[in-house]
């Protein structure tokens, strides 16, 4: 059962995360073509090799339906497998395992997984700022008649991610205890990693635990420097069958384990807010790969918030439930440390380029395994665990990756 490890990540490309206001504007189709071209060049493959596509569907600028067809038409490729993902921050990890599964099933041989996340150009007469603010007004909360969140959340002011994750953190505090300075270590260590990554948004801006604790309280107990910053960007990876992977330019990164779990949109309705859907995900992914948490050489953990990292580490089995604070206090998460995590800086310090944010973790794992991580290169770099998280612990997934 599960993946046999016959598909591999062979190429990657991403835009450096940038502030929306100053980032280049590009149509999504043009971003897809550009990122695909860069990722294929990285792999040493060509566009005509691509016969599979996984793309983020919602918010695709030039189409609200038929997204794969319009992408195939624009690229000039024939697709034997096409999939749209709609898993929020878990979309990137979700795209990669879908591509691997399709390849193992024989549906396609080389798949493009792509997440465009720069804003599209606007017409000269668009009231751009007003439109953007209006679009962002209710975040990802639906205001439609009949939508549970429109009826049960918005009238009370429950909106967006910050307060949802803050309530999870407060629950953790009430049940297991909470130490803000310990959580701050995650942000600080990741910032150290980012300061060795010229591609990171916060490169050259080291931070301290005091900086994190001194940053503004947004929703108790979460502070600004524990909350990811949205940015413009975009990313693509190429997944190929093993025989094709052997012909590519770099060390193939085989997908040997994966799993996914979708629980509820709002964490409010989870039976236990602190038992994230990542528990069953990790057990299945590690089981499929035939490895244990203690075997991996690096963990690239989806980090929209410091509390999300803590809960994922617990539920992935890197430590016991309720022992996350002690684990975080005792471990060194830098690339020089005893538990290398988010070695690119994590999204907190690399930057969260919208829906492509989760791909930064996949791409860092690829670069580490391929031995191309520059000053951040780990000495042991054959086996990686990559997690994805969407919404407010709504969607969860994971990959176990091994170098050929």
């Amino acid at each position: 059962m599960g993946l046999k490890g016959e598909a591999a990540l062979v190429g990657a490309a991403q835009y450096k995360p940038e502030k929306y206001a100053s980032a280049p504007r590009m149509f999504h189709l043009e971003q897809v073509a550009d990122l695909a071209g860069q990722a294929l060049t990285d792999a040493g493959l060509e566009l005509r090799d691509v016969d599979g596509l996984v793309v983020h569907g919602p918010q695709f600028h030039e189409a609200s339906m038929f997204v794969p067809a319009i992408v195939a038409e624009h690229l000039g490729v024939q697709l034997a497998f096409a999939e749209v993902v709609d898993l929020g921050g878990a979309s990137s990890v979700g795209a990669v395992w879908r591509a691997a599964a399709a390849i193992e099933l024989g549906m396609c041989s080389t798949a493009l997984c792509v997440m465009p996340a720069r804003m599209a150009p606007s017409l000269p007469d668009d009231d751009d700022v007003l439109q953007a603010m209006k679009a962002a007004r209710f975040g990802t909360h639906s205001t439609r008649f009949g939508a549970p969140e429109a009826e049960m959340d918005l009238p009370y002011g429950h909106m967006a991610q910050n307060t949802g994750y803050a309530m999870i953190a407060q629950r953790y505090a009430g049940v297991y205890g909470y130490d803000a300075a310990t959580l701050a270590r995650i942000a600080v260590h990741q910032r150290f990693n980012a300061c060795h990554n010229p591609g990171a948004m916060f490169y050259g801006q080291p931070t301290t635990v005091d900086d994190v604790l001194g940053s503004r309280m947004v929703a108790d107990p979460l502070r600004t420097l524990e909350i990811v910053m949205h940015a413009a960007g975009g990313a693509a990876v190429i997944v190929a069958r093993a025989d094709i992977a052997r012909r590519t330019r770099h060390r193939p990164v085989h997908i040997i384990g994966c799993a996914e779990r979708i629980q509820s949109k709002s964490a409010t309705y989870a039976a236990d807010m602190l038992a994230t859907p990542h528990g069953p995900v990790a057990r299945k992914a590690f089981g499929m790969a035939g490895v244990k948490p203690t075997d991996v050489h690096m963990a690239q953990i989806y980090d929209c918030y410091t509390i999300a990292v803590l809960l994922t580490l617990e539920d992935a089995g890197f430590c016991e439930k309720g022992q996350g604070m002690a684990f975080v206090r005792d471990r060194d998460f830098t690339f020089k440390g005893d538990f290398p995590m988010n070695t690119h800086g994590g999204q907190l310090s690399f930057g969260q380029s919208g829906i492509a944010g989760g791909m930064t973790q996949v791409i860092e794992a690829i670069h580490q395994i391929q031995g191309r991580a520059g000053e951040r290169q780990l000495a042991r770099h054959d086996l990686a665990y990559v997690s994805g998280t969407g919404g407010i612990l709504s969607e969860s997934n994971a990959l176990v990756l091994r170098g050929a």
Partner: protein
Amino acid sequence: MGTWNKPLPRPTDTTRPYWDGLKAHRVRLQRCEECGRWIFYPRPRCPACASRKLAWHDVSGEGKLYTFTVARIPTLPEFADEMPQLLAVVELDEGPHLNTTIVGAAPEALRVGERVRPVFDDRPGEVTLLRYTPVGSPHPGIIAPGPAAAGPETTPAATPSQPPKRKVSCKDLAEMKSLVSTEWSGWSNEFLVSQEIINQFAALSGDDYWIHTDAVRAKAESPFGTTIAHGMLIQSLASRLKLPLDYEVVDFTNIVNYGSDRLRFMTPVRSGSKIHARCRTKAVEQVKSGVQVTIEIAIHVVGSDRPSVLNELVMLYM
């Protein structure tokens, strides 16, 4: 506060009994007649066993505070009057969780797991919202509609009985420089930014853009859900806000307002919000014609941590 301009629930055929219950000041929940599971939010089928045999029951509405947060930035602009927002999840005694807000309690006194009881909020008019308060709180179980105790337009400054102010001579540069501090002053009095004042400013300045003056269009089209004050209006209302300073500059023949080194409109001020201000002295410099003082004034919506206006005002004492 006038009309309720926050998002309102629109009951569906499935959820209407729940909202009708709240209107009658009762908490009603569905229970599955097949598997016994209590259900929230209302559905046509049981999420545990998919049975359609669901029945409505009145329950006490009491439960435990499952978790909460203190939102320091309004989650939506319409909620600026609640700052800080006490958002919470309550676990009903029957098991289901629901989203709500806490009333009648100080944020620092809240404890995960403490007992809470329902408060029926009739203010929206067409529907009743279900809020919660700790069981020991004296907060009434019903919040009645109608204007809240209409207070005066302005309130006294934070320190009503002030000790005699320290007199600082503008001729004494060392003493003037001692005023420079990173600490903020106390808060000024509060001032209500009414639609009337916004309309007057629109007429006076000629800036009558609909986002400030057209309440109907703003409710439908504005990203803020209601009209907002002009940034320039809020900036100039600083004159209405008396800062509780413990010193007074003396020995000058004239003060000149030199303008501003930096003026930023950081967050919108909704029509109907109260504002207040605080300040700190950023710099004191001897210049040719006198002593130049840069004062940073921060004007906030009451309860909001994030300023609406930041103004680095430059004054010249001559």
